[in-house]
């Protein structure tokens, strides 16, 4: 994961001898700004020397509520050398480590399991680490997930997403578990198979961001949370009582009925979870469940 870095010549500091009008802090900040401008210039020359053939142009969304010049959202261009197998995340890391260390994005596992780097890449929600640059048309436009508040650059506030996930009581809670600490609950292979896909969610938020309904209705549970509910409602180990409670949660106004089967969630899910199918199955399940009481 390292990007090789050529040594930059470090400058010797020349502080202390300035008039005392500015505080040392301000002075340092001032110098820092100058230094940054120099770096910017250096970067430009460096970029200019890159051969056009083997580079990719990134257009990256920039915003920082605190930093002058970044308060108004803008796109920055980065030209990054391309090699086979390079992902969007690799390119972002390169741009950050080489050109602009203030470029901010979440990432960790770089193997599509941590769900940190769901981004809006060329108009679609994707995981940066799972998206090969060679599959994209250039210039590659990278933005934070739509419909979520931007904290800074590519980082969005996930709080709302987590709240929705938590709202479906996303934890296993069986009616009864075996007394014996060493006795497992039995689960048939078919049942595990049924919930298998739904257990794969990595909480990346791509689905929620792609759903127009979720964009319009803040209270809509959203595909990921409904899928989470599905994972438990369909798990035969939990028992009938719990299932009833689970159905009550998902069949609220802002639960499954909000889904208008747009399918974009299913299309963008990096874990290929058939979200729409799960939502639809829960709708039918709720209806069936209600008809019983007529």
């Amino acid at each position, binding site marked *: 994961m390292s990007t090789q870095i050529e040594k930059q010549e470090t400058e010797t500091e020349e502080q202390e001898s300035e008039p005392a009008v500015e505080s040392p802090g301000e002075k340092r900040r001032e110098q820092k700004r100058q230094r940054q401008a120099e770096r910017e210039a250096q970067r430009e020359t460096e970029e200019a020397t890159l051969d056009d053939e083997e580079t990719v142009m990134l257009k990256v969304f920039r*915003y920082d*509520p605190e930093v002058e010049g970044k308060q108004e959202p803008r796109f920055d261009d980065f030209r990054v050398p391309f090699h086979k197998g390079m992902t969007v995340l690799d390119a972002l890391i390169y741009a950050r480590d080489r050109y602009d260390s203030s470029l901010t994005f979440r990432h960790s596992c770089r193997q599509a399991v941590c769900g940190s780097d769901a981004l809006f890449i060329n108009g679609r929600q994707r995981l940066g680490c799972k998206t090969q640059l060679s599959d994209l048309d250039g210039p590659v436009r990278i933005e934070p997930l739509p419909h979520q508040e931007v904290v800074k650059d590519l980082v969005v506030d996930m709080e709302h997403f987590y709240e929705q996930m938590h709202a479906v009581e996303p934890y296993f809670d069986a009616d009864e578990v075996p007394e014996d600490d060493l006795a497992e609950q039995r689960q048939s292979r078919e049942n595990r198979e049924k919930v298998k896909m739904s257990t794969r969610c990595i909480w990346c938020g791509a689905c929620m961001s792609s759903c*127009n309904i*979720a*964009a319009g209705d803040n209270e809509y549970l959203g595909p990921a949370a409904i899928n989470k509910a599905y994972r438990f409602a369909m798990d035969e180990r939990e028992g009938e009582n719990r299932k009833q409670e689970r159905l009550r949660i998902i069949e609220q106004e802002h639960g499954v009925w909000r889904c208008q*089967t*747009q*399918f*974009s969630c299913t299309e963008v899910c990096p874990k290929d979870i058939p979200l*729409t199918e799960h939502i639809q199955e829960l709708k039918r399940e709720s209806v069936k469940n209600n008809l019983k009481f007529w």
Partner: protein
Amino acid sequence: MSQSYNRGTVEDFGRWREFSAGMWAWIFHKFTGWVLVGYLFTHIAVLSTSLGGAELYTGTLQGLEALLVVRFLEVGLLAVAVFHILNGIRLLMVDLGVGLESQDVSFYASLVLTGAIVVASIPTFLGGPLA
């Protein structure tokens, strides 16, 4: 999700171009649904002329039918209705969990079929005595 901070052009610029089949289907279905409700109200209003007697009713209807615009509007209505029906059937299938993998294909099929039906019925709709 609320967007207290407005991303300006970034947020909405040209986003529709990135819509996928399912979203277009949703938008078209909405649009056609609304047109149909609108028509339902108008339709009843027009038919209400029957309360004013046979001549008025016949006169109004035939008078309207005599207008070429109305004929064209009717073709439009047919298109809207046929799409709404076909996509409605698609949605009903989706609700039953049938053919979810080919939801995009079925949307395109609805579009094509709507086109075909509309083209095929143009002679009937535009034909017939105008006056």
